[in-house]
């Protein structure tokens, strides 16, 4: 089945130790998103790629970086995780626009739960 896959599902890292989360998709969508969702809160967009065009949200900390080596894969790098970065990280994909116009539906992966010790 076509889907959005996130690995690992659970990640534990130490304070200040770099960590990389991965996302892959079989939907062939040209837009990929990374969201941060803290406990009992709404997902917050960190950045998104439209093809290779990187779009950073204004309030995303510099500690968060992303790479998209090809259409299928996108990575979230946290350079020096702090305790406040513990959260669920959601990857989502969409087409650029829905057929007939307007923004396309976003398809979400199951998320990676990051714990920072």
């Amino acid at each position, binding site marked *: 089945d076509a889907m959005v896959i996130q690995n690992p599902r659970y990640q534990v890292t130490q304070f200040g130790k770099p960590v990389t989360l991965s996302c892959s998709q079989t939907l062939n969508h040209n837009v990929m998103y990374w969201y941060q969702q803290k406990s009992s*809160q*709404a*997902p917050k*967009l960190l950045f*998104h790629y439209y093809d290779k065009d990187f779009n950073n949200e204004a309030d995303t900390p510099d500690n968060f970086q992303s790479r998209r080596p090809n259409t299928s894969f996108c990575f979230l790098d946290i350079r020096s995780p702090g305790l406040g970065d513990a959260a669920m990280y959601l990857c989502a994909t969409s087409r650029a626009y829905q057929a007939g116009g*307007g*923004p396309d*539906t976003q398809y*979400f*992966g199951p998320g990676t739960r990051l714990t920072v010790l």
Partner: protein
Amino acid sequence: AQTVTQSQPEMSVQEAETVTLSCTYDTSENNYYLFWYKQPPSRQMILVIRQEAYKQQNATENRFSVNFQKAAKSFSLKISDSQLGDTAMYFCAFTLGSARQLTFGSGTQLTVLP
């Protein structure tokens, strides 16, 4: 900036009954889209229903329907014949027609009771 407000952090409903989740939003734009997403426990978020602001007709998807009141900037979700599988966190979300970024509300945790 756009904001989305969900004033009901938690709700419960008996199986087979109807429940309505509230959502209000604020924008000065005229071209926008509204969504309800469902996030079941430990499972991925999925789209429940979407509404184009230029459409006056309320969107419907099987047991799910919306009451879109554009002047009041209100976008409520009605779930009819509630099922146990409807238990989830429900997020209302907004995006401008020219954008891709979703702005989410804080969510409503819905529990369907047997």
